[in-house]
């Protein structure tokens, strides 16, 4: 089963996605972390997420670009967090896919799906604040939106998270 979980900043999407991943299976669990520890703020965020996951049985796998190279244990339940970091990494990291960012991420997700039992993907809702952005931001948004739509199309379940509560846009849905 593949689920896409999308929400704004601090909407509770991570906690919901973790809970969903835990509820799906008692088998091995793997967390694919995509945030590069650039500075203290990133490291603090990473630490907060590690503590939130502690005791839930996730092995952590770091992957900043080239998602197809991430190899979680077979038949595991994978939590991928998050697509918005991956998109930025693929677009702007020296070893990223650049113009091939959309394909790199979507193909990476497909290879994960083939390998794992369940896949929960976290992404960001950043598309309701207008289109007046400086520099390359609009291009980034276009790429992330395209990835989100393609992943939603292929996912069995799609949730939008608001105040920690899920709105089910696709699939069977789960209660709060």
């Amino acid at each position: 089963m593949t689920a896409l979980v999308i929400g704004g900043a601090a909407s509770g999407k991570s906690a919901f996605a973790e809970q969903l991943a835990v509820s799906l299976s008692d088998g091995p669990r793997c967390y694919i972390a995509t945030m590069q520890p650039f500075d203290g703020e990133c490291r603090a965020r990473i630490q907060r997420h590690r503590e939130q996951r502690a005791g839930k049985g996730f092995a952590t796998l770091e992957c900043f670009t080239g998602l197809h190279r991430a190899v979680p244990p077979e038949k595991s339940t994978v939590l991928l967090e998050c697509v918005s970091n991956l998109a930025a990494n693929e677009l702007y990291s020296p070893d990223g896919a650049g113009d091939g960012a959309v394909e790199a991420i979507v193909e990476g997700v497909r290879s994960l799906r083939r390998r794992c039992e369940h896949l929960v993907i976290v992404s960001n809702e950043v598309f309701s604040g207008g289109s007046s952005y400086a520099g390359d931001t609009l291009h980034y948004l276009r790429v992330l939106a395209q990835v989100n739509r393609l992943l939603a199309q292929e996912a069995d379940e799609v949730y939008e998270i608001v105040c920690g509560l899920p709105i089910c846009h696709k699939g069977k849905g789960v209660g709060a």
Partner: protein
Amino acid sequence: MILITGPLFSGKRSTAKALLHWTDEELAQNAVRDAQELAAGCADLDALAQELAQKPVVIVTEVGGGVVPADPDERAAREAAGRLSCLLAERAETVIRVFCGIPTILKGGIAP
């Protein structure tokens, strides 16, 4: 009139084409796109909404979800865009919100 709303790049046009079985040409002929841009500087939003309500389809992007813009013109444009969307939704037979390419009907319905 069918009003289609949703965040930026959420798949509003593709959804319109899929739901109405339209080609790109039919969409171009029958739908008004980026209606939020028509609201900026418009002196009479009611009249604009009334005019747009005569079209088969109006597509509008949600733009009110960010921080209040520092620039006064952008602030006014965003305000007008939101107000226009509400006026359009009142007049629409059907309102559809698209999220991540997935439509949710907020008002009315669409014949299969």
